[in-house]
């Protein structure tokens, strides 16, 4: 049962289907499948920042844009090949993300949220107004990408590049969050002072959380620019911000597999909303509200409850449950000490 319904089977089926997509579907469906993978990457990066490290930052869309603009402009102004420009854009986004950790050290909650929001709007303003560098509101077309030894078109080449990136970034996220880094993030989320008193270096881990999420968003941005063959500011506005948030919340805050689910569902539901000619703002504003109010841990807890084989190392325990979890059940079992700790093993029901 677990073999057929488990998390691993789901991922193999999902990425297998995405692998076969280009040979089965039409161009539009390939585009959507590519977007699905980009949103998986974006949701993974944002979830590590909000869901694990507990830093409510609003600059993810800006990082996404910095990645796309960084890569595109390095190609356009300095004629770098994509293979050098894309990592360049990713690193610029990562550096910008790390810079945002500086205010995050002194503030939290609302202050952090609004400072990062101001930063995101400032970046957006630069994209639209710094015409001599960013080509202004009209955007620009980066030079075509050369896949020369491999005989593929740019669309298909970028598609498979995104496929590989999405798998690697998923594995990286899963393993990082299961390591001491993930535990440090969760400790910071649940109480900064307590985390500090346990010897967790706040500066290092907050900077790391922002750097990781900046890197993920920057990667998605660099791939997005290549996929679309066009970079313009309207792809990185406030609406993107709420879409990323919705993907994370729908999937499940603090769950890596939840972000994969969230990325897939979000992209599909955006397309459905467009198809039905509904207002995307209203639909996703309402969706975000409904999930926060009625299913704050996202769809993934629902799946975890009913389907075997979906357990994760660190589970997001919201609010009151987090208080209760001081008992042995959650804290010992979820960290994964059970296999070595005999006494804890005995106490399990």
């Amino acid at each position, binding site marked *: 049962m677990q073999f057929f319904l488990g998390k691993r089977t789901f991922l193999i089926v999902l990425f297998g289907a995405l692998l076969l997509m280009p040979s089965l579907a039409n161009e539009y469906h390939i585009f959507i499948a590519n977007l699905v993978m980009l949103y998986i990457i974006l949701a993974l990066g944002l979830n590590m920042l909000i869901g694990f490290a507990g830093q*409510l930052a609003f600059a993810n869309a800006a990082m996404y844009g910095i990645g796309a603009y960084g890569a595109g402009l390095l190609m356009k102004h300095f004629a770098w090949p994509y293979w050098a420009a894309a990592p360049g854009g990713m690193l610029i986004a990562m550096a910008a993300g790390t810079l945002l950790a500086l205010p995050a050290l002194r503030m939290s909650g609302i202050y952090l949220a609004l400072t990062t929001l101001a930063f995101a709007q400032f970046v957006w303003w630069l994209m639209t107004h710094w015409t001599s560098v960013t080509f202004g509101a009209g955007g620009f077309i980066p030079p075509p990408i050369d896949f020369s030894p491999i005989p593929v078109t740019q669309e298909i080449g970028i598609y498979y590049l995104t496929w590989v990136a999405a798998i690697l970034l998923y594995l990286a996220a899963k393993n990082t969050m299961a390591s001491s880094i993930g535990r440090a993030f969760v400790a910071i989320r649940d109480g900064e002072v307590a985390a500090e008193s346990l010897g967790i270096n706040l500066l290092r881990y907050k900077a790391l959380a922002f750097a990781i999420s900046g890197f993920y968003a920057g990667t998605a941005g660099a791939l997005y620019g290549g996929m679309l063959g066009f970079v313009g500011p309207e792809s990185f506005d406030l609406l993107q911000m709420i879409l990323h948030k919705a993907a994370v919340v729908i999937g499940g805050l603090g769950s890596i597999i939840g972000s994969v689910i969230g990325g897939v569902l979000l992209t599909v539901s955006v397309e459905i909303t467009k198809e039905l000619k509904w207002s995307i703002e209203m639909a996703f504003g309402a969706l975000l509200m409904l999930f926060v109010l009625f299913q704050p841990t996202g769809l993934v807890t629902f799946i975890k409850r009913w389907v075997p084989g979906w357990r994760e190392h660190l589970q997001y325990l919201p609010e009151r449950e987090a208080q209760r979890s001081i008992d042995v059940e959650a804290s010992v079992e979820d960290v994964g000490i059970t296999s070595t700790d005999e006494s804890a093993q005995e106490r399990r029901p």
Partner: protein
Amino acid sequence: MEMFSYLMATGISTGALYALVALGLVVVYKATSVVNFAHGEMFMLGGFLAFTFHVMLGWQYMVSLVLAVVGSFVLGIGVDRVAFRPLMQRQTLVSVLLCMVGLSFFLKGLARHLWGGKGDYLTFPPLVSPEPMQFGGIMIMSQQLVVLVACGIVMAVFMVFFKLTRAGRFMQATADNPKAARLVGLRVDRVYMMTFGVGAAVAGAAGVLMAPLTLLYPDMGFMLFIKGFAAAVLGGLTSIPGALLGGFLIGIIEQMAAGYIHTGLQEVAAFIIIMVVMIFRPTGLLGGSRRRKV
């Protein structure tokens, strides 16, 4: 000199509007420790409600103003009931903020749906003749003067309400110490609800006053929210005089930067001020020191 006085007059009159938006934010923040992310939408919907009553139905401006203020008061209560009350019981700030962000987008989309599509700007008729007036060598638009006076009246009404009425004192007491307020028998939940309502009503009034000066469009709420927040942060986020001072300062700085340095700066001045204040002086100009709770 003429340019300076013109920029100053514009700065002060837009600053008065920012001060009103900041006032609502600070009142809510003081009482609940939450910044109402949908505050800009209260402002925007106040303007749109006034447009509906004044332009579409042809009622008098004063009547429309009162109705729009009542409407935004109700909306503020809605924010409390939808986003604040159910989530604050679970004690998570992140979910309150996420819910408010969702709500603000929903309201923005609703306004776009009801009052016109994207990029559709509504014009609001001017209140008085657009002729400029002379004041001892200083040119001032009579429109701006009316707005300035009206903002002053709204602030005065708010101050009287906040300082002298029973409801205002309840709000003060709750903001000061919610636990103690509950102990002496105040219904803190109701006070929170009223605080959200009053904050939104002030923002709605600002929206109605701004409408004749500019065009109405659904995205204006977010812009004003950011500027109001910049004003509130500059003043210290917990200080009502600070919010008013911050509002005027933001208005003036913005106009000066646009007039003497670069016109594009008018839009970003607020973002830059937020970032600079947050990094170098998070307590603002008049705010007390923030205690770090363990």
